[in-house]
């Protein structure tokens, strides 16, 4: 187990086209840490910097307080799982997995034992003598994981390891990888653009946007209390509207919104009365309630369109000048153009830090 620290790391492939900008990041020992972002955000570049295939233009990278910025990839003791698995087609599964032991001069019974243990861990022990070409995608993925784990690395790097698998296999591999990482006590850094993967597996997530860190936090925190519109949108469906801060209290603040005055939980950053900000509310947090009676933190609108999806419905509700998306679970039958009252719990009305 080791902790990873990045200080002021930048990288550009050609002058003027910056891929990573002055990144500071701390990854705790034993953590399953996710780098999440759309394609082209620099997450794979960051992973390749950690593996040593790239050198940063500026900044320093530490593994367990040791500066490894200029250490060659083959001396970093990281296990990496490549997006396309990169299994050597000319070697058997056994030889593939044993490779990291060969380079460390581990021979004989010890070598056999460690390979066997790695293959048992991914439940591939009966395939040891086969060649990679005879395995299915999921099996190749497991072997790639076993190969990266066999020499007991302190840091595991995973580059979209599940992106080549079908949806069903992906689901089962998610919990499998998490189980393996946790039982081996590994620090693992996992790159993906799939937010469901990140939400269901990560201890913490870093959201990357155009080479910059957007926000770092637990899955729940990033979903519930995003700091920026980018994070909010990337993590799930939401509605956005402009608000003005009216008064700031102890743990709530009162906002002037296009739908009337409403209370919201106080954000993590400083706000003062008169600030003009953007507020966010997730589609499932706009809760339709009994029409006609008065409710706390609620407003009324008109149902414009809806799509019935079985276990839930998505409604389009017009309120003021805005068209809001509402996700309702266990939905009753609703007629278009009927009135609807929407209620928001103050902690679900989130103030965003940008604009």
């Amino acid at each position: 187990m080791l902790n990873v620290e990045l200080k002021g790391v930048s990288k550009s492939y050609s002058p003027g086209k910056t891929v990573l900008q002055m990144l500071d990041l701390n990854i705790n020992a034993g953590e399953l840490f996710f780098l999440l972002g759309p394609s082209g955000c620099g997450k794979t570049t960051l992973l390749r910097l950690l593996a040593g295939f790239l050198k940063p233009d500026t900044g320093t990278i530490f593994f367990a307080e040791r500066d490894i910025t200029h250490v060659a990839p083959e001396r970093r003791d990281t296990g990496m799982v490549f997006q396309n698995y990169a299994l050597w087609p000319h070697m058997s599964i056994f030889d593939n997995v044993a490779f990291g032991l060969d380079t460390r001069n581990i021979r004989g019974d010890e070598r056999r034992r460690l390979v066997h243990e790695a293959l048992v861990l991914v439940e591939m022990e009966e395939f040891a003598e086969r060649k990679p070409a005879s395995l299915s995608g999921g099996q190749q993925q497991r072997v790639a994981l076993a190969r990266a784990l066999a020499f007991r690395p302190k840091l595991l790097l995973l580059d979209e390891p599940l992106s080549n698998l079908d949806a069903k296999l992906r689901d089962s591999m998610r919990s499998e990888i998490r189980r393996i990482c946790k039982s081996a006590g590994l620090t693992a850094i996992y790159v993906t653009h799939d937010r469901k993967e990140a939400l269901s597996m990560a201890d913490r997530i870093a959201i990357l946007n155009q080479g910059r860190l957007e926000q770092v936090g637990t899955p729940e925190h990033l979903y519930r209390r995003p700091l920026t519109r980018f994070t909010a949108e990337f993590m799930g469906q939401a509605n956005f509207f402009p608000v003005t801060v009216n008064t700031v209290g102890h743990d709530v603040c009162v906002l002037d919104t296009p739908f009337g005055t409403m209370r919201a939980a106080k954000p993590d950053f400083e706000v003062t009365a008169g600030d003009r900000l953007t507020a966010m509310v997730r589609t499932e947090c706009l809760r339709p309630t009994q029409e006609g009676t008065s409710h706390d933190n609620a407003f009324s609108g008109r149902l414009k369109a809806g799509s019935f999806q079985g276990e839930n419905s998505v409604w389009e509700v017009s309120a003021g000048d805005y068209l809001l998306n509402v996700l309702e679970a266990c939905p009753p039958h609703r007629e278009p153009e009927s009135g609807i009252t929407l209620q928001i719990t103050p902690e679900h009305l989130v103030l965003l830090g940008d604009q």
Partner: protein
Amino acid sequence: MKIVQKLFLPVLLLFIFLFMGLPLFTVTVQGLAPSIIIETLSTPFYQEGLINSLKIALCTTVLVVIIALPPAILYDRFEFRGKSLVNVMMMVPMILPPFVGALGFQQVFGYYGVLNAILGHFMLPPVDWLGGQERFGAVCLIEALHLYPLLYLNLVTALANIDPSLDEAARNLGAGRWRRFRRVTLPLIRPGMFAGGSIVLIWSFTELGTPLMLGYDKVTTVQIFNGINELETNPVPYALVVLLLIFSAGIYSIVRATLGRVDDTMVVKGMSGKRLQRLSLLPGILVFGVFLVITLAAGLPHMALLLGAFSQDWYGTILPSSWTMLHFKNSLSHEIVVPSIINSLKYSSLAMLVCLGLGIPAALLLVRRRPRYRHVIDTLIMLPLAVPGIVVAFGYLGMCSRYQVLNYIFDPVNNPTLLLVMAYAIRRLPYVVRSACAGLEQTPVSLEEAARNLGAGGLTVLRRITVPLVSANLVVGALFAFSFSMLEVSDSLILAQKSIFYPVTKAIFELSQILGEGTYIACAFGVWAMLFLAFSLLAANLLLGRKMGSLFRF
């Protein structure tokens, strides 16, 4: 269309049978008398020839690997100034058939050649560069400098096909540069190594022109050639041909068994982009220098040829002592020159047409209709690549003297045109078919189906969709067929027996044998040939780019 399809296969099979199967058969029958083979094998003169041929093949191949592997790796790893140039540079030696190169080679390395003149200039004693009368080293070096592009192109293609993550994975697991090369790169380029290496091995084993031109007659091919005049009475040349064939097949099988296994298909999905290491100015110049040195070394005989063509008198001096344009004029006015050019143009165009006429339908059959027996057809079409030209030529003479009917049709003594065309065609057919197949495989069938869906018949689809789409590949295949026919040596030397039927290569050989001005005229003639092939290869390179390497696989 249906009838064409039905008729095509028998025509193709008849062609292969008549111009490859039957000659191989007659050669084998005539030479396979055990008593003669044993007698030949126990004659020290022929023993030595076979051993020398094997030694030449081995040395040449080793030299080729040494020359071709480092630049291929440099090309694959690095980005440097002038990189776009180097592949064209590396093709330079293909411009000349090595036997013409041998002409220039002697001007440089001969005892009274340029190198010794330079040594003499600095008061140093002359060195016997060619290894005395033996000429063994000279033959290997000339052939290696001519043949290395075959391996180089194959290696560049093979290296480009390796997913970079395979190397990165090894690096991630702690493997250093040498271990990665030995355990990952080398095993993965093995098929390319095999594809290029086996051609070089067999080519140099059966090469006739170079040892003949250098006067090195202790090799099997030259011994066969010299035996041609006593063919009626002496069965030894046939026995030698059979031995050549057996050894070729043996070498090929051994190499295939050790290098050619194709069990390791790449399983990597979605090739990750290759990141080339960009070299700064000085290392870049060094790397470029590697390519330059190889090209210059390979181009030396050609430059000497050029100088020889312009020189009035060049003997024991660094540069010719006087210059002239006369040889270019003479080379065009000599009585056998112009007819030989016309002959070569005629033979080669006809051979090219035969190749296209058979090659396009064959490729369509192999790629589009994919019959179950397609591997058999593919092997049959590719077979001529592995059969030496000298064997084919001998087979033709043999079958004509054995079956009177064929002698009546082909008439090799009085007019060898048809046989020469077919000899050229059958050994170039593989290039055309491979090239056309590559084009068809890259063209989605749906484009043809769309035309069919809109009401086009089979021939219309072929004419308006298929042929235009693969035209680049067809042009390249045709160019290769034409150029290599123009510069074919073995068939030409053996089959063209009367001077009015001489093709270019035989004319150059005959000219070079004339004392006095003959060599210079031959040089001038060689320059014409060189310009010609340079143009074809440049055009092919532009049209096909890096895929060129795949043409030389079998």
